[in-house]
């Protein structure tokens, strides 16, 4: 089930806008912060805290998870085994994905070739359908690994996790909102999921940016068009936490995506349609409220025709 109020922001490191966003909702009091995506630097949240005038309470999910794993070695081993299976599934998915993506790109290259008039579009449609089916299949496969894990190990019922959840619930009850920073999207997702943090909220709004925004979506898409090695194929990691609907969050898209390459933009937008594929550079804001999206400043969406358009246009 989606969350009632989520504010998605652009990256915060160089041009922070979080305090303005918090103020715009008229929130008073403390704000819970998740910086688990920063991994071993989780506690180094001084800049974030200062930006919010010292109002933050870091939920320390990375540290809590470490403590759980030290105490509950059985759960630790089971979690590692699950992650190994997920990693291998991702590798296998990539094998199929790279070929299907290259086929789609090759077809798009032939769209304007003389003699192929009218023949290419249905082939492109078929290729994109194949990609969407592959992405869906991958999400389902990873989901089934999680379901199997949860049914077998019942993490929320284990004392090691339940104790932390009770503490988190008490902390969150005293906070006016939850801020989720970026970092390693996989680590962040796993820590939020491990403690079921979103289920512990009582309707407070969520502010999220970069990887923090990505984990709130229904489907996490990894992307980089300019890697030093390889083709830079966008790939689905797995289902996100589903706090918002219909969004593919693309932080740093201005640096990580070839937004001037109409064919790449088009293929991306069509593959993930009807979701809003939103480029989220610094100072961007997108609001999820009453089950719909609105863009306040700067957010642009990738369009099927290869162009970019203002969100809401």
């Amino acid at each position: 089930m989606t969350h009632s109020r989520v504010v998605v922001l652009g990256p915060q490191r160089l041009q922070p806008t979080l305090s303005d966003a918090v103020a715009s909702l008229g929130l008073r009091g403390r704000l819970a912060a998740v910086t688990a995506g920063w991994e071993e630097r989780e506690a180094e949240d001084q800049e974030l805290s200062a930006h919010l005038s010292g109002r933050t309470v870091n939920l320390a999910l990375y540290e809590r998870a470490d403590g759980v794993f030290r105490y509950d070695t059985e759960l630790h081993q089971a979690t590692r085994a699950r992650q190994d299976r997920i990693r291998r599934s991702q590798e296998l998915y990539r094998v199929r994905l790279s070929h299907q993506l290259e086929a789609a790109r090759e077809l798009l290259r032939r769209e304007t070739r003389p003699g192929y008039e009218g023949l290419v579009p249905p082939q492109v449609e078929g290729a994109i359908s194949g990609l969407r089916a592959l992405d869906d299949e991958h999400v389902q496969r990873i989901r089934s690994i999680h379901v199997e894990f949860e049914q077998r190990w019942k993490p929320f019922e284990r004392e090691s996790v339940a104790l932390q959840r009770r503490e988190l619930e008490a902390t969150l009850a005293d906070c006016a909102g939850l801020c989720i920073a970026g970092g390693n999207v996989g680590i962040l997702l796993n820590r939020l999921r491990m403690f079921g943090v979103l289920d512990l909220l009582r309707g407070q709004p969520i502010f999220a940016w970069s990887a923090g925004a990505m984990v709130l979506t229904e489907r996490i898409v990894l992307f980089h068009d300019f890697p030093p090695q390889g083709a830079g194929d966008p790939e689905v990691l797995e289902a996100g936490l589903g706090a918002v609907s219909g969004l593919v969050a693309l932080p740093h898209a201005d640096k990580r995506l070839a937004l001037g390459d109409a064919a790449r933009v088009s293929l991306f937008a069509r593959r993930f349609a009807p979701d809003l594929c939103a480029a989220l550079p610094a100072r961007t804001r997108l609001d999820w409220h009453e089950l719909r999206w609105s863009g306040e400043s700067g957010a642009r969406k990738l369009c099927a025709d290869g162009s970019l358009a203002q969100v809401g246009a």
Partner: protein
Amino acid sequence: MSLLGDLAAKSHIGPADIDAFLRSHRFPLVEGRTVTFVFVGAADEVRLRHWIAGLPPSQIFTRFHDSPMWTLSIDIPEGSRVEYKLEIVRGTHHQLIQDPLNEELARDPYGANSVVFGAGYARPDWVGHDTEARLGEIQEQKLESAAFGDTRDVLVYVPARFRTTRRYPLLVVHDGPDYLKFASLRTVLDNLIHRLEVQPMVVALTGSPNRLVEYANDERHARFLVDELLPMMESRYPLLPQPAARGLMGASFGGVASLATAWRRPGVFGNLLLQSGSFVFTDIGPNDRGPVFDPVVRFMSEFRARPGRPADSAYVSCGTYEALIYYNRSIVPLLQSTGMHVRFTESRDGHNWENWRDRLREGLTTLFPGQLMMVYE
């Protein structure tokens, strides 16, 4: 018609025409594959001195229409970088100088050369300072070496946001101070780590007071790296213990030192980054490069006969304008035959530090790829 041809087509060429020509162009003139070098001044002869294997090392300029301007046009393929000097001959006096009309210089331990960029060459955007990149730090360590019987200085690069609670890969770099000075290694590491293209890593930058001996398969050097440097680094820095998280890197004789150490002590360093390695061998007859190469040739003979499996992965690069290209091309299938994963890159460049600088991104991202797809800050 070429720019020089346009000038030559004038019915009369006076000093003002030459001055205007010099003011209105950048030199050397790069017109497609044709590069024209220009010198203006008193001389009996002007020569281009370069280090492109396969071309005559000294090429003679011609005087342009009885003017004080001398020119030489040669074919430089696209994407090339060519370092050079001008040799000015006046009577019996020969003087090697940097090109007065070209501000582009490439520095090395012997000074600086002029450098011309062929059409299409672009200085990588990751070799200059990036204002957004967090900066790593260079620390100084000293190491008492029983292997060499002296004290060695080791510079250590630690990445930005270094934390003792985390474990890092280790890269050991031969001629490390030169890599810092002439190949911008510190800036390159800062940038590539900032871009998430390579893992945050600790880099031990070693040097040698006698590199032509110590880097030429000297048993003491392998002992120094494996039995002295590595334990010292592990005792002072939080390092990942697996060979896959360790690498050796070097250029020229430093490449030989890297390979020879891995060959002598396999299973310690999992990755080799070998740039323009001096992997000289002979199939018949003596080595023609002088006695300094004798130990290298002996090593290569042994290595070719019994390569073992020195590491798991290697990135090998060499310039096509180097005389060493033959040896580097030859070593790739040999390394592959050991079961190693090998990536080989050729560049249109010579045996110089900026060639090695320009290949660092590909080498480091091959051996120590960062979490580019997983991290969104």
